[in-house]
């Protein structure tokens, strides 16, 4: 790219309006980073020509690791030599995304020295995304990151970097310590994170309560969502206070309950807890009066994914209630069994949810040695062509006729 003033009329359109613009950020970086400057040039050309000019690199990485580096090369290296290599690095974020400013400065210093200086905090995976570096800089970056206690995250057919909500660090609804669990699982599955051995990716996301702030039910193969199994805690005086201050408890709380398990007679709020679906609506609306129960843990769900081979899927229940206490051994044993059967029988690029759909939930449960329970039923049966003759014992039919 020449040093002449870079004209980017197409990209300039993306700076208009009231929203923050990535173009503005890249332009700022371009004042001191030749890589960012060539990135603007190539991007402008892409918008003008309606063509992408990136090539995928499938072999770049750091020694011993199979994930964490996503290779990118420019298809126009003569025109934009500074982005001829433009690899992305995924760095394992701290649980709950808590940093000191010092550690952030150190990451940025490394990246300004050895990469484009452009970051994405954070990518949809949850990782720290460092955008744009050369192949010969990968090992030095890895080494410098290790010195400040950061490691590369997951990519490819491996365990992706586990992520969690801020949990007990900031949120009163957290039903288990999401940050501790996320850290524990990250450390326990280092091999699976760095050495891809699965048919496709496998994601863990930890949410402290059913509000599911990290959207684990839609985005994680294994969604671990906090819940409780006793009664919602009620502060009756606080409920009265809400009513006095003008809240329409019937319209705003009771009528919006999906299980219709609440009653408000104008004086007292009653909850039939056995019907509660743990949706958190009433607790969110009357946060001073209602709280999750005291017997807390998590529901373990399996199978969500974005649309690639099959359409998008939400996770469905695998274990209705699990006391999330370290070292989470029972859960880890089940995970190992899931990986065993999925690795053995799964097709290339088949997510675990798709695998379950293909082999059938019954066969899958048999393989992972888990008893079926009613909570696992995601929705009523859709296929009417199921016949139950094979379930009848000999003589059952005659008994029915007689009766």
């Amino acid at each position, binding site marked *: 790219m020449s040093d002449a003033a870079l004209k980017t009329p197409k990209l300039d359109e993306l700076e208009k309006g009231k929203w923050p613009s990535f173009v503005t950020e890249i332009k700022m970086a371009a004042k001191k980073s030749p890589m960012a400057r060539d990135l603007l040039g190539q991007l402008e050309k892409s918008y003008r020509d309606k063509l992408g000019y990136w090539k995928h690199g*499938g072999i770049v990485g750091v020694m011993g690791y199979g994930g964490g580096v996503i290779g990118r090369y420019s298809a126009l290296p003569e025109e934009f030599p500074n982005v001829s290599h433009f690899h992305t690095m995924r760095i394992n974020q701290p649980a709950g995304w808590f940093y000191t400013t010092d550690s952030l400065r150190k990451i940025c210093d490394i990246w300004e020295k050895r990469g484009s200086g452009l970051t994405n905090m954070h990518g949809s995976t949850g990782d720290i995304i460092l955008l744009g570096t050369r192949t010969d800089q990968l090992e030095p970056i890895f080494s410098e990151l290790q010195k400040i206690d950061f490691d590369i995250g997951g990519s490819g057919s491996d365990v992706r970097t586990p992520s969690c909500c801020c949990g007990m660090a900031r949120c009163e609804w957290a039903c288990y310590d999401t940050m501790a669990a996320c850290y524990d699982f990250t450390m326990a599955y280092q091999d699976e994170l760095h050495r891809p051995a699965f048919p496709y990716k496998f994601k863990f996301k930890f949410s402290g309560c059913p509000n599911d702030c990290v959207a684990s039910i839609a985005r994680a193969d294994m969604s671990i969502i906090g819940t409780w199994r006793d009664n919602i805690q009620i502060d009756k005086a606080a409920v009265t206070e809400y009513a006095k201050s003008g809240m329409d408890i019937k319209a705003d709380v009771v009528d919006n309950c999906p299980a219709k398990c609440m009653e408000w007679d104008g004086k007292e709020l009653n909850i039939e807890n056995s019907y509660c679906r743990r949706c958190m609506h009433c607790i969110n609306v009357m946060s001073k009066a209602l709280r999750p129960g005291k017997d807390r843990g998590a529901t373990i769900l399996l199978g969500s994914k974005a649309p690639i081979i099959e359409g998008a899927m939400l996770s469905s229940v695998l274990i209705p209630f699990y006391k999330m206490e370290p070292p989470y051994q029972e859960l880890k044993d089940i995970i190992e069994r899931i990986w065993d059967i999925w690795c053995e029988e799964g097709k290339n690029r088949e997510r675990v949810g798709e695998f379950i759909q293909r082999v059938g939930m019954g066969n899958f449960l048999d393989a992972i040695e888990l008893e079926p329970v009613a909570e696992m039923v995601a929705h009523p049966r859709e296929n009417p062509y199921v016949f139950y003759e094979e379930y009848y014992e000999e003589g059952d039919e005659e008994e029915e006729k007689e009766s």
Partner: protein
Amino acid sequence: MAKTVDEIAEAMFKLVKDAFGQKKLKPMDLTKAMIELYGDEVDKKMCKEAIKQLINSGRCVYTYFGGSYIEIPHREGAAND
């Protein structure tokens, strides 16, 4: 008699080398091939160790083309030198 991790790694390397340019092999393909070749003399844990050895020694590398594979190091077509 059980095979050693070194022997498994060697057999895996041969497979990867022979398949180069024709078929991309995933780690599970290698494990299944070893179990088929050596039967009870190997197990999944040993195969995992053998793969680790191949990668750590640099004789093989992980690659990504829609999924993760194990290949011998090579210059990829997309690379800009």
